[in-house]
């Protein structure tokens, strides 16, 4: 027997039995940015049986300061994060089944992704996706662990359907884009701290030690030396449309699905076709080459087209990132000029 997990097994609250449980479980990590890469690495090193990781973006140099699975070569080659993450995670632990998808999660995709999943962990960077996860988790009775951070501040909360309040109870209203859009940056240690809280809660759930769950909303500011911990049990509402007595799962309804999104703080708009398509990148390359003016770069996963101050990145699932604008209508015009 290999001693890869010996230190974790020696840890009393996990032990031999706990380790076996960990190795029989399936965790879904939504997002492979700062939190997602940290979570992915921790869970894969811990030997979770199967880890699924999904992300809609590709690696850029500005990610390398805190997104721990990526290298300069991933940024130079604009490798989709899900692809680069899977490659690195495989190198770290070949025992673990790692599934990765380059996609932006919508209701349909989540309904597929959560099949057989024991726990969902939050590695996203926006409330829209979190509220979608929150409704799916309630509908299918799957625990999930919220985590978020900005500047030197982070927080986490573990949501157990039927027991704790849900994210919708806690937020009450969906925060406006501006409130969550961070133009103040973030430091890597706060990411690590949030990831540490999230991973530990996941491990407790995986080994079945629910007694030890933190049960409180925790937040901290590593620069200001603040640490807060609040019991939010009373926030649970029987009228909550996500976790209440008569749930309607509002964020799973069609109207909530945004087709075009401004990616906060990135001067980028994402456009998603109404239905997923399998984009032929070679054919697209021919079309763009005939149009003449811009620079085309391509890898097996995406095609990047630079012209003037703008850059458009086309993914095989049909999504397009328009860099150089925060204006959805401008982005759509550029999109339709090329895609028709």
């Amino acid at each position, binding site marked *: 027997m290999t001693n890869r997990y010996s230190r974790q097994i020696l840890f009393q609250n996990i032990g031999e039995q706990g380790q076996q449980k960990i190795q029989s479980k399936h965790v879904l990590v939504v*997002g492979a*940015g*700062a*939190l*997602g890469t940290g979570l992915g690495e921790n869970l894969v090193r811990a030997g979770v049986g199967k880890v699924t990781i999904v992300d809609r973006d590709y690696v850029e140099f500005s990610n390398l300061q805190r997104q721990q699975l990526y290298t300069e070569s991933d940024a130079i080659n604009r490798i989709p994060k899900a692809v680069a993450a899977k490659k690195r995670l495989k190198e770290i632990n070949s025992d673990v089944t790692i599934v990765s998808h380059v996609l932006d999660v919508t209701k349909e995709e989540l309904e597929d992704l959560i099949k057989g999943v024991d726990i969902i962990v*939050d*590695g*996203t*960077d*926006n*409330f829209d996706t*979190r509220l979608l996860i929150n409704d799916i988790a309630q509908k299918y009775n799957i625990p999930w662990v919220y*985590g*978020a*951070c*900005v500047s030197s*501040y*982070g*927080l986490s909360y573990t949501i157990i359907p039927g027991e704790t309040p849900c994210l919708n109870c*806690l*937020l*009450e*209203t969906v*925060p406006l884009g501006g*409130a*969550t*859009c*961070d133009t103040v940056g*973030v430091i890597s240690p706060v*990411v690590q701290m*949030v990831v540490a809280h999230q991973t530990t809660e996941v491990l407790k759930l995986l080994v079945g030690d629910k007694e030890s769950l933190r049960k409180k*909303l925790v*937040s901290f500011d590593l620069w200001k030396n*603040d*640490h*807060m*911990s*609040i*019991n*939010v049990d*009373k*926030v649970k509402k029987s009228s909550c449309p996500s976790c209440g007595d008569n749930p309607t799962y509002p964020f799973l309804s069609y109207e909530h699905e945004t087709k075009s999104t401004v990616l*906060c703080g990135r001067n980028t708009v994402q456009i998603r076709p109404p239905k997923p398509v399998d984009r032929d990148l070679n054919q697209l390359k021919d079309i763009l080459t005939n149009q003449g003016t811009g620079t085309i770069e391509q890898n097996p996963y995406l095609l990047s087209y630079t012209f003037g101050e703008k850059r458009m990145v086309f993914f095989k699932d049909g999504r397009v990132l328009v860099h150089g604008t925060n204006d959805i209508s401008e982005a759509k015009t550029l999109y339709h000029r090329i895609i028709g």
Partner: protein
Amino acid sequence: MIVQVNGKRSELPDSIKSIAELLAHYELDKKVVIVEMNETIVDRNEHDNTIIQEGDKIELVQFVGGG
């Protein structure tokens, strides 16, 4: 008035009477914040009506979206 905010002794200007005013003071009034006062959560609808007293222990936890 002197209160404890997030575990730290804080001297508030006299103009601050309610939780709503406290949130505005910390520029958190337009953010999603959970407020706990003396170990009890203050309902969002009660932020205007809840008066802060000398020595109150207040915890403010803001929800952020980054990650």
